[in-house]
């Protein structure tokens, strides 16, 4: 057995560290990849979270606006119904008041007003109206250019109408006289 070639064997102690180193290297690279993947995943997750949050905000805003609109519409409708109801109630109350109260009061007061109160008021006020109010009104009316213009226009209109009527009547008379003369002449010629 002396000739048996010896095979060189790598000692186990030298192969193991390589494998370990490779394993460690793989592990390190894997860890780096894992870290990068984890970071990327975290960024994506954060972006998704922000997007979801934004969508949530928008949905909440729309929901709020819709709710506010519905509330306002409901409030306006309620106000209209309330106003209609109040108006109807007031109308009914006014009608009842007119029928039941005001008419009776007026009927009861009319004789007193006509026979006593109004004549007294008129007798007391008329002298003052005659002496103080009427002259002022007449003066204002006569001094008002619009009233003067209106009176002048009406006078002119009356004169124009009278003149037009006079001319129409005279023109008709012309026609009648001439027709009568023509008839007389024809009759005479016929005889």
């Amino acid at each position: 057995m002396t000739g048996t070639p010896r095979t060189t064997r790598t000692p186990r102690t030298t192969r193991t560290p390589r494998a370990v180193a490779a394993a460690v290297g793989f592990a390190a690279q894997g860890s780096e990849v894992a870290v990068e993947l984890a970071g990327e995943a975290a960024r994506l997750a954060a972006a998704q979270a922000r997007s979801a949050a934004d969508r949530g905000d928008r949905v909440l805003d729309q929901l709020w606006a819709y709710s506010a609109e519905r509330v306002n519409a409901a409030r306006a409708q309620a106000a209209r119904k309330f106003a209609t109801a109040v108006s109807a109630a007031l109308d009914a109350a006014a009608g009842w008041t007119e029928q039941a109260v005001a008419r009776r009061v007026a009927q009861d007061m009319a004789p007193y007003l006509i026979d006593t109160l109004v004549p007294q008021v008129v007798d007391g006020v008329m002298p003052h109206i005659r002496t103080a109010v009427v002259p002022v009104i007449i003066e204002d009316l006569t001094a008002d250019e619009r009233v003067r213009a209106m009176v002048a226009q009406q006078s002119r209109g009356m004169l124009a109408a009278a003149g037009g009527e006079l001319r129409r009547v005279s023109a008709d008379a012309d026609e009648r006289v001439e027709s009568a003369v023509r008839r007389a002449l024809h009759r005479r010629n016929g005889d």
Partner: protein
Amino acid sequence: MTGATAYAGIVTRLSALTVDALALAAVVPLVGTGVPALWSAATGDTPGWLRAGAQLVAAFVPPVYFALCWWGTGQTLGGLLFGTAVRRPDGARLSALRAVARAFAGLAAAPVWLAGMAVTLWDPRRRALHDRLLGTVVQRRL
């Protein structure tokens, strides 16, 4: 009547003439006697020349009135009231000479003037005798 122009008939013309006559009947005596009366009231006596002058002026008031009215607008007071105007047959206004001739002819021969009005009854343009002689027509404005 011919075309779109209307002419005044005998009733309208005599009515307008009556209005003018009434107006002159009020004005002529005022001129003829008013001025001498005022003078007399102021001085106590009226000189003869003033009386004669006033009557002369009064005598000329009617022809001057008619001549001026027909020459100016073709309308006297009666014409204004009844809407008539004296014109030439073509619608033009009268010349001063024609207006004066028409006025003096009418006043100097008033009976002929009035009798000549009868011609309006059968004249196509309702012209009177003096209208035919003097080349005028009397238009009506309704």
